[in-house]
């Protein structure tokens, strides 16, 4: 008995300690990023582990004054929000059809959708650039929204499909017997029942859109450029200004970290694909 009690006490203690260690380990780069963003460029490149220094807001002021941070931030919000809305607008009906009226091809279609995520983005760089330029869509919000939506659609559909699968088919059929139209089924039954899952999916999709860099950097210049582009733009040819770069990066990841903090529960649920009820 004593041994059992001891191991469980050990377990009780060790788990939070381990969680904190892992948490701090993951948080360290962000901590360092924020710390560096308050240093002068001269302080930032000093090789020693500099924790105590004279903080400066110069980098942040520089960013808003010279780089028009707010325009990039607005673009990030616009493209991420609309891409998420459109991804859900396409994903919900699609996942609904596959979850409740599966055909023999459903499994293959799902696999095929996921397989598009296995294709390296660089492989379609040329056709994508060519298409956007010849359609006159280069550096437009519309293009960025469409691209962000398309690259996240497979994961959105997969997640929604998994959540919808948990809803008993009987309930949907009861709705049909009660005289509900297909749209009514989605609105009155499916969305209220899968609300948690839909919220997690939207949140995750939003974060992916916000963080996306490969396409936003390559398909925009100024008009539709997002925060990723702003970070990339601070890679000046005359050398790296770590203080400035850190400030830009911190300001780019800041909103999403705050959002993530407030929606921790939904995120965990989303990332475990509905395994946690």
């Amino acid at each position, binding site marked *: 008995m004593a041994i059992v009690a001891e191991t469980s006490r050990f377990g009780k203690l060790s788990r939070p300690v381990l969680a904190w260690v892992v948490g701090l380990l993951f948080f360290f780069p962000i901590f360092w990023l924020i710390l560096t963003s308050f240093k002068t460029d001269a302080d930032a490149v000093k090789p020693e582990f500099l924790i105590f220094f004279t903080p400066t807001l110069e980098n942040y002021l520089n960013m808003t004054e010279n780089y028009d941070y707010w325009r990039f931030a607005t673009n990030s919000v616009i493209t991420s929000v609309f891409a998420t809305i459109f991804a859900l607008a396409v994903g919900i009906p699609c996942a609904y059809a596959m979850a409740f009226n599966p055909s023999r091809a459903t499994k293959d279609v799902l696999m095929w959708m996921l397989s598009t995520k296995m294709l390296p983005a660089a492989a379609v760089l040329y056709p994508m650039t060519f298409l956007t330029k010849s359609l006159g869509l280069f550096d437009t919000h519309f293009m960025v929204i469409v691209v962000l939506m398309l690259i996240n659609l497979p994961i959105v559909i997969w997640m929604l499909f998994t959540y919808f699968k948990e809803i008993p088919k*009987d309930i949907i059929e009861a709705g049909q017997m009660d005289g509900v139209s297909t749209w009514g089924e989605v609105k009155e039954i499916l969305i209220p029942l899968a609300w948690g899952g839909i919220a997690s999916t939207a949140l995750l999709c939003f974060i992916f859109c916000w963080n996306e860099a490969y396409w936003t950097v390559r398909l925009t210049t100024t008009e539709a450029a997002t925060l990723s582009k702003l970070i990339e733009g601070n890679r000046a040819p005359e050398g790296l200004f770590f203080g400035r770069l850190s400030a830009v990066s911190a300001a780019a990841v800041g909103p999403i970290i705050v959002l993530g903090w407030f929606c921790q529960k939904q995120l965990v649920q989303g990332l475990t694909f509905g395994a946690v009820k």
Partner: protein
Amino acid sequence: MGRIVLENVTKSFGDAQVIPPLDLTIEDGEFAVFVGPSGCGKSTLLRLIAGLEETTSGKIMIDGEDATQVPPSKRGLAMVFQSYALYPHMTVRKNIAFPLRMAKMDQAEIDKKVEGAAKILNLDDYLEQKPGQLSGGQRQRVAIGRAIVREPAAFLFDEPLSNLDAALRVGMRLEISELHNRLATTMIYVTHDQVEAMTMANKIVVLRAGHIEQVGSPLDLYRTPRNLFVAGFIGSPKMNFIEGAEAEKHGAKTIGIRPEHIAVSSDTGPWEGTVGVSEHLGSDTFFHIHNSGLAETITVRADGEVGFKHGDRVRLAPREDVIHRFGADGLRIE
């Protein structure tokens, strides 16, 4: 009105035909029970009528109109599911009101109908609760309430009592029968339990592997089963089947005699055997008789007071007028 006619209806899932061509008529106001062992296609047949499965071929007529291609939401039928299938995010009141709200009925009338249904089903006190807070029996009542407010052409019940405990099942069985008497609406009820079929139905449809084995009133099926399958399926305990010399004496391949039609005593009767297990139900006792030379076990239903013990030698006297005779093809010989 709720007269339902199936003409030549078939259903296949891929290459597997689960319902071979089938004809069936359910008259308006009838209480029809589809009964059969699991996998016999009874639920599929109900879902075809509901419209939840598409017919592969054939016609389904509801009140004289071809409903084969009509979606379930437009057939005017109500269904009660085994799993209750209540909307977990709505209160009992909203669950019951749901079909009316979908039909765009005005709120005052919805309230009136919901209150009325709640009164019939004793749900008055639970209207503001969510399904998760209710017991199984109450949930099933809500599901029935949701069905009756619509005043459907027919009610479809898909094994509605299977998830309830035994005592509750008997109570709900009576409530549903009472409801049928009161509403006089067509009801189609699917079950694997022949006791439910016998006690509730006006018309029993016995199914096996998608085929209709026999259609008739409970007593028709009990008195004149058309074949060995129906004879063995209807009645509890099961009918005894005897083959060999004893059957040939009656000019049949197999004879069947129900446990309640055999008298057991220590000295009278043409058959003899040893008492095995006795099941004492109080009012009745079921004796399982071995070593009779007729069949492995002969089940006999006797009065509860009859007191033979394990291993006793007893004599059995079948009632000659109720011996069922079956030919080599399994069909009844009149």
